[in-house]
């Protein structure tokens, strides 16, 4: 349970950051990448990734495309848009300030 809570509110940031490094990932690859990069610490309830992706898509931060996979199945892959890049900057600085503030509280309390 602690694992999911850690992800609350920062899923957008993680997805955007990931897509800024590696483009054209499908949902499962995004989830797997977040899990492995964080050493399995950050792990969402996997299903909640999809509404988040769709919300960001509607907001215009990421763009989706259907591609044909080698197996013959279709996959929906996502990539960052210019608006998404801007949003990533904003989310990052917000995360910075929040984490600095939390760290200060933890040190001084």
């Amino acid at each position: 349970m602690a694992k999911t809570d850690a992800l609350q509110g920062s899923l957008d940031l993680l997805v955007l950051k990931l897509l800024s490094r590696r483009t054209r990932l499908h949902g499962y690859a995004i989830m797997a990448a977040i899990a492995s990069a964080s050493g399995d610490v950050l792990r969402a309830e996997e299903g909640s990734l999809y509404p988040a992706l769709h919300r960001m898509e509607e907001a215009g931060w990421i763009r989706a495309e259907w591609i044909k996979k080698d197996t013959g199945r279709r996959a929906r892959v996502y990539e960052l848009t210019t608006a998404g890049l801007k949003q990533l900057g904003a989310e990052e600085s917000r995360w910075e300030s929040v984490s600095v503030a939390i760290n200060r509280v933890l040190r001084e309390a």
Partner: protein
Amino acid sequence: MSLWSRIANAFQGERLNREIEEELQLHMEEAIASGRDAGEARRAFGSSLRVREASHSIRVAGWLEGLLADVHFGWRQLCRNKVTSIAAVLSLALGIGSCVAAFRLIDALLWRPLPVANADHLYILARSMPHFDGKLIEDDHWATPEFDALRNAVKDQADLIAISEADRTDVTWTTDEDMEKANVVYASGNMFPLFGLEPAFGRLLAPTDDRAPGASPYAVLSWDYWNHRFGCDPKILGRPLHIGDQTFEIIGVGPRDFTGTEKGTVTDIFLPVSMNNFATMERAAWHRTFLMLKPGVRAGSDLEPLRQHLAAANHTFQAGCSTCFHGMPQVDIDRYLKQNLILHSAGAGILELQKDYRRFLGILGLMAALVLLIACVNVANMMTAQATARAHEMALRISIGAGRSRLIQLILCQSALLALLASVLGALFATWAAPFVLSLINPPDNPARLDLPADWRVLLFGCGLMLLVVLLLGLLPALRASAVRPVAALKGGEDPHSSRRLMRGVIALQVAFCFLALFLSSLFVASFQRLQNRPLGFSTDRLLLLQTVAGKGQLPVVWNQTTEAIRAVPGVESVAIASWPLLGRIQINSEISVNGAPPSPTPAFFLNVSSGWLSTMKIPLVSGRDFSPQDRSPGVAIVNETFARTYFPGQNPIGRSFERDGGQSPNKIVGVTPDVPYHDLREPTRAIFYVPFNGVNDKSAPQTVGFATFVIHTDAQDSLALAETLRKLIAQRHNGFRVSNVTTQYDLVRDQTVRERPIAMLAAFFAAVALLLAGIGLYAVLNYSVLQRRREIGIRMAIGSPRAGIVHLVTLDAFLMTALGGCVGAALGFGSARYVESLFYQVKATDADMIALPAGAILLTTLIATLPAVLRALRTDPTEILRAE
């Protein structure tokens, strides 16, 4: 872009669901492919149903999806009751179409601003003064010297523009035989520049064209005339145009959309005011005076000082006019000097007889609105009935969590669908109806042309109307449906009387509207009938009228020779000459003095007629004799009975004498005729005298006559068949005569009712539709209420209620409500009739038959409408009902 994609997705919800499903499916497959256990992956994923729902609602505009579902559902509801829906759409379409058509007419005639610059700064100058019968009359005609004086007085604050009324004038483009009619307007040279109008071609009249009388023989054509008469021929410039004995040169064509300042009349030719002979006469009030405020002068606060300034200048001019009052009695001079100046806003142009037309059009609009209201009430009723029948469904929807707003939306969707369908049909109807009604109002010899554009004004009105209809139709049923209490409804019905109370109110409302429509229409129809059947006192049968002009005038003897020539034509029974026809557009009065006394306060109207005119017109003589061919004017006269009563009360007028306009030789009365209408069918009887056609001047020399009308009684029923023969005969005699207008006495009489006839027809039509719709509405309500009360009726019958009791039960409400509605309608009717009473001829709103007729019609309709419901109630089989329960 995001909203757009969400809206687009709302139209393809199924495809979207498939895509989401596919994406989630792929996630599972990837998980298994990467070596995870299927069960574990599924658990880690969480509820896929929830994910799907969440994604769907993110990617779709939910409100739109709901709306689409409601529209779809509403459409299915309409399709389920096809007959009712079609009836509803048709009746609404009729109502909406009538309203839009009425709006188009009223807007075009009264509200739409003229296509000129600063139309909101344009005013027309009128004056009111006491008439000789004491009533205040308002007049907007001015003499050119008066105009010049006023123009100088206010030249710093405003510009005055002289524009004459459009006059059907004989114009000649080539040879004398080719005379035709055109609407001619005289305008001061500043009109085009002040109106900000640019020529389509050539040049327009300019202020320099006002410089001296007769110095600017130039004419400007309106674009419309240039287009339909000359096919936009560019070689028109410099062509000569003959009017009377004047020749004008065409110098240009006006802008495309400017047709003059009179609504309903398209001006063909503009001429300079300075070219009209009246322009130099001090008392000839012949043109209108418009006022355009200069820039910087405020229409609100500066107008009243300006008016007072003009009034003072006008009074100074009138009082200083030495030649104006020559020979007038002092009382008339005082009356004339008591002028009051009025400024009317003229930005929307002028309409002849504007006040009367305003009221006529107002009534037309009211009738159309009543039909629409009745149709709306009908359909709202139908929807309420359906909503009540769907109370169970509504209760169920609320129980499983539908919001009230969603229920209201559901019902409003259905009414919007109805309104939309009806609006499309109504728009088609209005496209046809507005020009049709306009063609009804027009006299055939002078067809009014009016631009009836279907532009944003009409569109805006139509949309507003549609919105109103949607609310009228849907709001009540929607609120009722959303107020459903699920517990009560699902338990077996709410208060069974609540919906009937509402419907009873609706019946009363509908009957009130219907009564009002019937009442007004019966007033108009009765007025028209009485006007049409008014005893004339002369015959209109087989009377051909040839209105003839003789350039610079011709001696009476030549006119009489032409009369003889016409008499010799086969098919002519008798022929006579009059200066102008009875009930034509001309009326001229004379002041009458008896035995050298000062003129009496009431003037009398006159007509010059040849011997034989009375017998040709079939006007009998009460006493005395007809004119003989030797009679001259002044010398003898024939008078009507009102004349005899007015000037020779209690005496035998034969052999007595009177003088005209002071100073002329006396006229000896040789005959007395009954009263006949002279200028207007509606007029009270006037004092009229006839004088011989052969006029002589002071020195007993014959006077020339410039125009007169040959009155020809033909053998054949269709007297117009002879017109062409006679026209050629008159032209071939080469004595300067030209027939300028051909008509019949019958047509002149019929033209007198040109306003009453279409209003009566339209009013009768609207009233019939209103009655039909109200009848259908009543039938539907009663039928529905009997269906709803089957249980109660069955029980009553089972316990021995007599048939009369059942009938009583079913119909009492309806008749009470009809009576109530009738009373309300009558009250409304009396209230509104007060505003239009002046339009009626010998009809009063309080006449017993004016109330009896609509009351009878409504009672009959109620009886017919209740019959099926009563029969259905009586056929109720109690055993069947009770077994079913």
